[in-house]
C-alpha cells in the first residue's frame, strides 16, 4: 500500500508543474496536464510491453529455490510459492494486457463507428433498429455474457478474449456516435454537401467523420480500459490460458495459493496496481478528450492554488471582482498582443454564446 500512497501524492504535483510549462504546446490534448500524465504512464507500460523480454530479469516461468520470498535485491518484487520471480511476470504480462486491450479497443471501436454512424446518418426505421440493438447490448450485463461465452469455448487465447470483448463491448461508443452524427447531419455544411450532390460515402468520410475524431478516440480509450479490466478479470477467475502471462494470471495464482492468508502482499499488490495505473492513465487521457469535446468542462486556466492566491473564487452567479495592481494589468495587456490568442478566444465560452445569436 505504501507504493500506492506515494503515487497518489505525486500526481497533483506533476499536474501543477505542467500547467506552467506546457503553455506553448500546440497539441491540444498535451496542453492538458491530466492527459499528459496519462500519456506518460501509458508510454511507460508501452515500453514494458515491447521490450519486456529483454528487460525482465528472469524467465517468468522459471522455478527457483527462493520459495515465497519477500522483495529482495535478487527479486525486487519477491517470488511466489514456486520460486518464480514476480517482477518478471509483471513485465512479461504487460504485453498480453496491452495487446488484448488494443485489439479489443480497435475491434469494438470499428463496430461502434459502423453501427453508430450508420444509424445516425440513415435515420428512420434502420436507425430505430440499430440503436435498439446498441441499447440491448448496453443493458445485457457484459461481463457475465463474456464469462459464459469464454467459459464454453474449448480454448481461450488472448486474441479470442479480445474478440469476445470487441463483439460485446461496442455499444456505448455506438450510442454516443449515433447522437453526434444525428446532430452533425442537420448542420449546414452537411446539408450543403448533400444539396450539391456529394455521394453519401463522401459525406460520411469527408464531412462527418473528421468531426467525430475526438468522440471516436474517447470511445476507443474507454473500451481499452474495459478490455484491460475484463481480460484480467477473466484470467483471475481462471478462464484463459494459464501459460499466457498477464496481470490477471498472477492474481489468479495469488488467490489460489493463499497469498492473502500468508501475507504475501508482494504477490498481489503490484499486479493490481499496474492494472489500476493503466486504467487511470487512460481515464486521464479521456478527461482531456472530454474537455476538448465539451468546452464547458474545460477549466480555463483554473488552477485552484493560483486562483486562491489571487483571491479569485470562480462561481456561477457571483463574478469575482479583483482589482489588481495597475502595473500588472498593463504588463499583461502587452503580453496579450503576442501569442496564443486564437486559443484564448476559442476557450472563452462567452464568445461562443455571442456567436450563436
Amino acid at each position, binding site marked *: 500500500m505504501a507504493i500506492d500512497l506515494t503515487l497518489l501524492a505525486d500526481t497533483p504535483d506533476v499536474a501543477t508543474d505542467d500547467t506552467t510549462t506546457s503553455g506553448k504546446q500546440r497539441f491540444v490534448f498535451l496542453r492538458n496536464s491530466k492527459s499528459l*500524465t496519462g500519456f506518460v504512464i501509458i508510454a511507460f507500460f508501452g515500453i514494458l510491453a515491447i521490450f519486456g523480454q529483454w528487460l525482465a530479469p528472469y524467465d517468468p516461468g522459471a522455478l527457483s529455490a527462493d520459495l515465497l520470498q519477500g522483495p529482495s535485491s535478487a527479486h525486487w518484487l519477491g517470488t511466489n510459492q514456486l520460486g518464480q520471480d514476480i517482477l518478471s511476470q509483471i513485465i512479461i504480462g504487460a504485453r498480453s494486457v496491452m495487446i488484448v486491450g488494443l485489439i479489443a479497443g480497435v475491434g469494438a471501436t470499428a463496430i461502434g463507428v459502423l453501427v453508430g454512424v450508420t444509424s445516425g446518418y440513415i435515420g428512420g426505421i434502420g436507425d430505430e433498429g440499430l440503436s435498439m440493438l446498441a441499447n440491448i447490448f448496453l443493458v*445485457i450485463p457484459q461481463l*457475465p455474457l463474456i464469462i459464459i461465452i469464454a467459459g464454453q469455448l*474449448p480454448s481461450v487465447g488472448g486474441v479470442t478474449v479480445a474478440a469476445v470483448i470487441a463483439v460485446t463491448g461496442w455499444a456505448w461508443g455506438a450510442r454516443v456516435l449515433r447522437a453526434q452524427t444525428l446532430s452533425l447531419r442537420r448542420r449546414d455544411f452537411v446539408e450543403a454537401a448533400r444539396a450539391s450532390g456529394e455521394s453519401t460515402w463522401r459525406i460520411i468520410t469527408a464531412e462527418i467523420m473528421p468531426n467525430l475524431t475526438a468522440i471516436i478516440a474517447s470511445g476507443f480509450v474507454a473500451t481499452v480500459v474495459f478490455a484491460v479490466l475484463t481480460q484480467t478479470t477473466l484470467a483471475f477467475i481462471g478462464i484463459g490460458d494459464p501459460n499466457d502471462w498477464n496481470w490477471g494470471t498472477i492474481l489468479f495464482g495469488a488467490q489460489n495459493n493463499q497469498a*492473502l492468508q500468508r501475507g504475501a502482499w508482494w504477490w498481489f499488490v503490484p499486479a493490481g496496481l499496474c492494472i489500476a495505473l493503466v486504467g487511470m492513465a*487512460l481515464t486521464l487521457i479521456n478527461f482531456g478528450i472530454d474537455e476538448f469535446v465539451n468546452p464547458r468542462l474545460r477549466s480555463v486556466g483554473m488552477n485552484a492554488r493560483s486562483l486562491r492566491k489571487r483571491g479569485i*473564487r470562480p462561481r*456561477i*452567479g457571483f463574478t469575482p471582482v479583483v482589482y489588481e495592481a495597475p502595473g500588472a494589468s498593463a504588463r499583461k495587456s502587452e503580453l496579450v498582443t503576442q501569442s496564443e490568442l486564437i486559443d484564448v478566444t476559442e476557450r472563452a465560452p462567452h464568445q461562443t454564446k455571442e456567436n450563436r445569436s
Partner: protein
Amino acid sequence: MRFMVRRIIFYVVTAWAAVTLNFFIPRMMPGDPVTALMGRLQGQIDSHAEQALRILLGLDEDKSLWQQYVEYWRLILHGDLGRSFTFFPQPVGEIVMQALPWTVGLVGVATIIAFTLGTLVGRSIGWRRGTWADSALPISAFFSAVPYFWLALIAISVFSVRLGWFPSSGSYDRAMVPNWSFEFIGSVIYYGFLPAMTIVVASVSGWILGMRNMMVTVSSEDYVTVAQAKGLKERTVMGGYASRNAILPQVSSFALSLGFVVGGTLIMEMVFSYQGIGYVLFTAVTTHDYPLMQGCFLVITLAVLVANIVADFVYAALDPRTRQEG
C-alpha cells in the same frame, strides 16, 4: 405515456434478445464438450430431464433449428432451466433462485449506497469547480480504474487477515440456522459489511465523475444563472436548479451502467465466496457446468432488466418532459 410505451417495448425486445442469445451461444460453440458430460450422466438421469438438457444445450440435432427454438421457449416459460451437472440432480432454477436474494441484497444495497454517495460527492465537487475540490478528480480516476476483485483482495488482506475485523468469506456464521432472528440478521450484516464496502469503494468514483461532469455542464445553463439573478438562496440554486437537472442524466446512466456494475460486483462474490449468483457462476465456470452457467446469465440479465425498469420509473417521475400531458 409514449415514453413508457416505448420503454416497455424495449424491455420486451431486450428480454427476448437475452433468451435468444442464451439459446444460440451453446449452439455456436465449436466442438462438443457437452456430449462427453452428458455421457457421464447416462443412467443417472431420467429421460425427461435429459431431453430438457438436450434442448437447452443444443444437442437435439435431429430437430430443425426452429423446432428447437420453440421447445427452448416452452422450457424457459415453464421455468425449467435444466439440471446442474455439479449439484446433480438439483434443478438449475432452484440453485439460482436460492442465490438470487443474496445477490440482490448485497449488490443492490451496495450499489444504491455507492450511487447515492457518489452523486452527493460529485454534486459538491462539480459545484465548487476551480477550488481544492478539483484535486479529487485524479483520485477518482484511479479508483474508477481499480479492478473490483483486486480491491477485494486488498480488503481481505488488510481487514480480515491482518486486522481480523471481518470474516474473509461466507455470508453468515455457519453455526447458525437461517431464520429471521436479530442474531442471524446481525451475522448477515457482519459478513456482508466488507464485501459491500468494497463494492461501494470500487464503484463510487464512477458515479462521482459522472455527476461532477453533469453538474459542471448544467451549471452553465441559463436557468441556473437566472436562479442566481433571482437572488435565491445558494442551497436552492444548487438543489432545485443545478443538481435537480444534473440528476436526470445521472439516473439514465445509472440504468445503462447497471450491467457493467453488476458484472463487476459478481466478481466480488467470487472473491468473498459469498453465496450469491456470482459465486454460483464462478462454480459453474470452474466445473464446466454449462446448464448452470446459462441459467445464471439468464437470471442476471433479467434482474438487471428489472432494475432498469425501476430506474426508468424514477426517471419518469423526475422529468416532467416524459409525461406529455398537454
